[in-house]
């Protein structure tokens, strides 16, 4: 690439790795991995609307009037993200939405932790108040941070193998 050659003619291994076919296969794996996370999270929360609402209520952040719409809509948002990621349609936009959602979740969990509320994050079903000894805020935040890294990769490199995006671009 012209840019690389200009700064001394060093072959940029990083550049090649990020642009090469291998990176696109890696991107596919990241995409499907994130799709699995969102699909699993969505399905786990669909079965019981009252439970989903309570998981949201337990954070004590949203007013009661928003608890149900959020609790009911969130799993379907997650399922929509999973579907779009499986298809590989609009990967960069979907990855941005994923990242924003994960940041919101991390902020929510941190806020509950900071305020000393004892809850289960309700990330994959369940949720609501738990005994103080059963909170797992750090694990939950680390887990979501891992998912955030997957999203970040797809924002950076949205081109992946076997995607509708690639098909449309051809």
């Amino acid at each position, binding site marked *: 690439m012209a840019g690389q050659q200009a700064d001394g003619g060093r072959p940029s291994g990083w550049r090649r790795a990020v642009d090469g076919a291998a990176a696109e296969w890696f991107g596919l794996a990241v995409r499907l991995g994130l799709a699995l996370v969102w699909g699993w999270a969505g399905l786990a929360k*669909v079965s*019981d*609307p*009252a*439970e*989903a*609402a*309570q998981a949201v*209520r337990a954070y004590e952040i949203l007013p*009661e009037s928003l608890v*149900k*719409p959020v*609790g*009911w*809509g969130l*799993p*379907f*948002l997650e*399922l*929509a*993200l999973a*579907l*779009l990621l499986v298809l590989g*349609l*609009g990967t960069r*936009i*979907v990855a941005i*939405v994923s990242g924003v959602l994960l940041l919101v979740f991390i902020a929510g969990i941190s806020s509950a932790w900071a305020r000393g509320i*004892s809850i*289960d994050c309700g990330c994959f*079903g*369940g*949720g*609501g*108040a*738990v*005994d103080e000894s059963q909170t797992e805020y750090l694990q939950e935040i680390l887990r979501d941070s891992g998912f955030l890294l997957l999203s970040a990769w797809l924002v950076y490199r949205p081109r992946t193998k076997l995607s509708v*995006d690639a098909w*449309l*671009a051809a």
Partner: protein
Amino acid sequence: MSEKNREGKRNARDKMQEARAAEEAKARRNKKLAVGGVVVAVIAAAVVVGVVVQNQRSKPETPTAAPAGTIGDKNLVIPVGAADAPSTLTVYEDPRCPACGSFERSFSPTIDQLEDAGKVYVNYHIVSFIDRSLGGNGSKYGANALGCAQDAGHFRDYHDVMYRNQPEETEDSFGSKQTLIDLAKQVPGLDTPQFQGCVNGGTFSGWVSAVQQDFDKSSYKSTPTVLLNGEPIYPKKGDEQISPENLVKWVDAANQGKQLGTPGSHGQSPAPSSTAGESNNPPSP
């Protein structure tokens, strides 16, 4: 060809290329916009459909059928004892909650005696949220069976039998309707075809859900939550630990100078004469 002519041709070619490049860029932009539009539409549609579907699927907060004799706003509360007793004990319990089991095994004989003496009017909120964290149906089915027992006028006895036969928290034996029916055999007169139909058919499942949603919105977060005249007394009242003796003392203190209630018959058998806690073994039939 003159220099001028050649130059003119190159200009024309350049212009054409520029135009083509601009067109391609425009097409790419349009494609991007279209993809973005589809993504946003899919997400928005999913959320709207989700909210509508879940709204229709969720059980109402006002039950269509409540067990006979239930009281309070929306009939969510099961009362035991004399309505005119001077003190009210409010108890929130989940059939699967181990702390509720240990509370009941230590306190139910005492509470039964206080009820029979007209000293307390007990209001039970039968909540059912343990299923959410552990999976299974034991909380919901157990709560429905308690509703069925209330409907048949045997709440107190069935409730006591149930907690004396409570499984480990992680073991969902109340998730088996047959287990719940088998336990009813220990309460004389309860195991009828009507009761079995009520347990098997989940007659009060809407009521169970309404009671739980009411608990969700309350400020109470765990079970058992026990209130004496609105004041929390479990596990402590002020600095004092709850015990059968202290409970009797607190009730007597609250009732001082007041007329005791007249317990009506709820089809309940009288309390055992001892205030000692009972063992976890099922009574012989």
